[in-house]
């Protein structure tokens, strides 16, 4: 059975697309056939982060409208044969998506793929709603600051009430917390919420902490998911996250913990 993962947050700019690209690449690298879908219709970005923007012919909306087949629209990744990208349309808006069409596309993908990663747009409106509606797992991407935490909390409420699993009273969506753009130095100075602070407010299973890193911006600019930058702290953090998601026991890194519970601090630059 394919697992549908939604990468969501409520708030914009917290690193949803970076995370979607990284974990999709990570899962594919680990040998699982993976598709990643850009739900941000009208503000298409995933193709840039994945470095395939010059190979987009058809998009998600074309497939939903029956103007192209799924195979015509899927773009195979340059770096990994197991990874396919379904780009968003840039010329349309979120209203071009509908529940039935999205359900059909996901069902067709599920026949062929092991993991389907849905990159949600910001907000809680139609695009975000449809991105999470069919999900089995949710990666809630949060920055260590109050407004992002509040929005994540709101999104968690929607996941548990407005998703397909909630409406059909199935087993609830599995929710994971990804804390991104984390800077232990600024936490120490009291400028940022700590992992514990965020955990206390959201009480959610922590899948990983991704440190604030220059390598993320470099990766985005060059169109290579940051997880492929194996030397970078952010790349390693995402690899840990993929490992933990697949059931491995990996100690948390990149957290400077006062109590020393989370172990060693890797170089933060």
């Amino acid at each position, binding site marked *: 059975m394919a697992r549908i993962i939604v990468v969501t947050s409520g708030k914009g700019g917290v690193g949803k697309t970076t995370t979607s690209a990284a974990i999709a690449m990570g899962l594919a690298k680990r040998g699982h056939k993976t598709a990643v879908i850009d739900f941000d219709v009208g503000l298409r970005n995933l193709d840039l982060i994945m470095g395939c923007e010059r190979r987009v012919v058809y998009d998600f909306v074309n497939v939903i409208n029956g103007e192209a087949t799924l195979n015509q629209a899927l773009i195979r990744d340059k770096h990994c044969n197991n990874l396919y990208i379904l780009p968003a349309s840039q010329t349309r808006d979120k209203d071009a998506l509908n*529940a039935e069409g999205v359900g059909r596309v996901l069902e067709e993908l599920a026949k062929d793929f092991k993991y389907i990663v849905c990159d949600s747009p910001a907000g809680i409106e139609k695009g975000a709603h449809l991105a999470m509606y069919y999900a089995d797992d949710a990666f809630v991407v949060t920055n260590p600051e109050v407004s992002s935490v509040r929005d994540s909390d*709101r999104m968690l409420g929607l996941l*548990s009430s407005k998703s397909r699993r909630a409406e059909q009273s199935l087993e609830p969506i599995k929710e994971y917390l990804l804390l991104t753009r984390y800077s232990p130095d600024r936490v120490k100075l009291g400028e940022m919420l700590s992992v514990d602070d965020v955990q206390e407010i959201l*009480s959610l299973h922590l899948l990983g902490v991704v440190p604030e890193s220059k390598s993320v911006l470099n990766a985005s600019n060059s169109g290579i998911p940051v997880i492929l930058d194996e030397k970078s702290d952010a790349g390693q953090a995402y690899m840990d996250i993929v490992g933990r998601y697949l059931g491995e026991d990996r100690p948390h890194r990149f957290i400077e913990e006062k109590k020393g519970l989370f172990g060693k601090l890797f170089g933060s630059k």
Partner: protein
Amino acid sequence: MRMSIDHQSVLSQPSALEFKSSTFSVPVLVLSSNDMADIAQHLQDKIQKAPEFFKNSPIVFDLQELNRRNLEIDVDQLVDLLKQNGLLPIGVRGGNNAQNQTALELAIPLHSAQTSAPAKPQSPPKTVSPPAPEPAALSTAALLITQPVRSGQRVYAHGDLVILAQVSAGAEIMAEGNIHVYAPLRGRALAGVQGDLDSRIFCFDLQAELVSVAGHYKISEDLDDSVRGKPVQIYLQEQSLIIKDL
């Protein structure tokens, strides 16, 4: 009076529509005066006590008492007054023919007045019949919530409300009876929303944005530091809200 509703299924099956039977809890406004100014004054007083609760609240107005005393009332004016106060009239009961006619012209449905009167035991039948399940008992049973109540979610209990997980900032929990929260309470908690002055709020860790008992409320800013973050109970004593250590 009650009706119920299911989750709106925005994303449903191919069929364009489906009829479902549902129950809601709707406040009923029972009028005992036909003086519009008097009604307006009392209405505003009530609403000021719990503005959030009454905001856009559906309401059924009951004219039975007025008609019993032969007091005439202009339904048109009454509906306007309700709307001006942010209420959404969705029904009338106990109206006479003319009043019912006016209500229907305003697209306000008629409800049978019988459901309102506390069902008087009619000459009890001697035969022993299996006790019918009491619908009333069902509604006043405590509502138990084991999942976190997240920002933006609302929970309404017709009786007591017991929550075992945290209530996030931006969430709203309401009960006609008592509220118990065995975890941090960060959102809004309103007990006795139908006016039960004896209802209380109990919580393990008070960090609420607002607490209210029967319309008497305190906002976060007014909470004393001595009770913040503590296990407390909140109740009414002579019109004032008392927050006390447990």
